[in-house]
């Protein structure tokens, strides 16, 4: 009972602020709305018993990545989008049409799924950090090391791109 109450209120907040992300005129409001979305999603992760992922979500996503976005928004001093009215309307129609099509397809896929209830007292124990760490350094050790290479490439790419002189 309490779980469904929390789920519904958090989901409504999440979807509403996600709509705010794509509808806000000022980029800075969009970034702040996305922070709200990510926070609500962290609450859903807690509801699902994934405490480690929820903590990472708040620390890395809502903390580090969104701060990076805010830095760039403030650095660039962006003005609200200016565009021809007809072109904008055309894009809106196309976007809503494709979005509706995608939603219909998703609903069709969900209907073919058995609506099995998630048993909240199932095999998963509350403390997940130990299990995730064990999996990360045994089964998924190679992808983990490859991810570090990817991050290194990201760092080098950002430095090379943002250098003052492109030569």
């Amino acid at each position, binding site marked *: 009972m309490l779980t469904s109450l929390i789920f519904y209120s958090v989901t409504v907040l999440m*979807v509403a602020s996600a709509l705010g992300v794509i509808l806000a005129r000022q980029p800075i409001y969009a970034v702040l709305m996305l922070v709200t979305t990510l926070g609500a999603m962290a609450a859903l992760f807690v509801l699902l018993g994934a405490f480690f*992922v929820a903590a990472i979500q708040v620390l890395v996503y809502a903390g580090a*990545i969104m701060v990076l976005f805010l830095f760039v*928004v403030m650095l660039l001093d962006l003005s609200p989008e200016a565009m021809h009215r007809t072109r904008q309307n055309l894009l809106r129609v196309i*976007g809503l049409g*494709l979005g509706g099509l*995608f939603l219909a397809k998703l609903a069709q896929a969900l209907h073919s799924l058995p609506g099995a209830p998630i048993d909240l007292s199932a095999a998963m124990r509350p403390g997940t950090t130990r299990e995730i760490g064990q999996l990360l350094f045994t089964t998924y050790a190679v992808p983990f090391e490859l991810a570090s290479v990817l991050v290194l490439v990201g760092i080098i790419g950002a430095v090379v791109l943002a250098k003052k002189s492109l030569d």
Partner: protein
Amino acid sequence: MVPVTLTHYLVASGLLFTIGIVGVIIRRNALMILLAIELMLNAANLSFVAFSRYLGQYSGQIFVFFIMIVAAAEVTVGLAIIIVMARTRGTTDADALRGLKW
């Protein structure tokens, strides 16, 4: 009230993903497109964690971890490209990127 099931989480995730797709299509500012892509990545994360809970396995949460790493790398390089674009073209409008040669 109906108990919260896997389907509830998948519907929330699908809604979020659709909002991300619509955002990529209707916004023309490159920064806003990146934000919409972040929304889609997070929708995938939500369904990964929901399925991880449903199946009682932790592998789904590991995948969320990797998606976050990829998102961080993507955002870093993407924002650097946007900064270069603003410096050389004077705008962050995605329509301004027309030439194949810089």
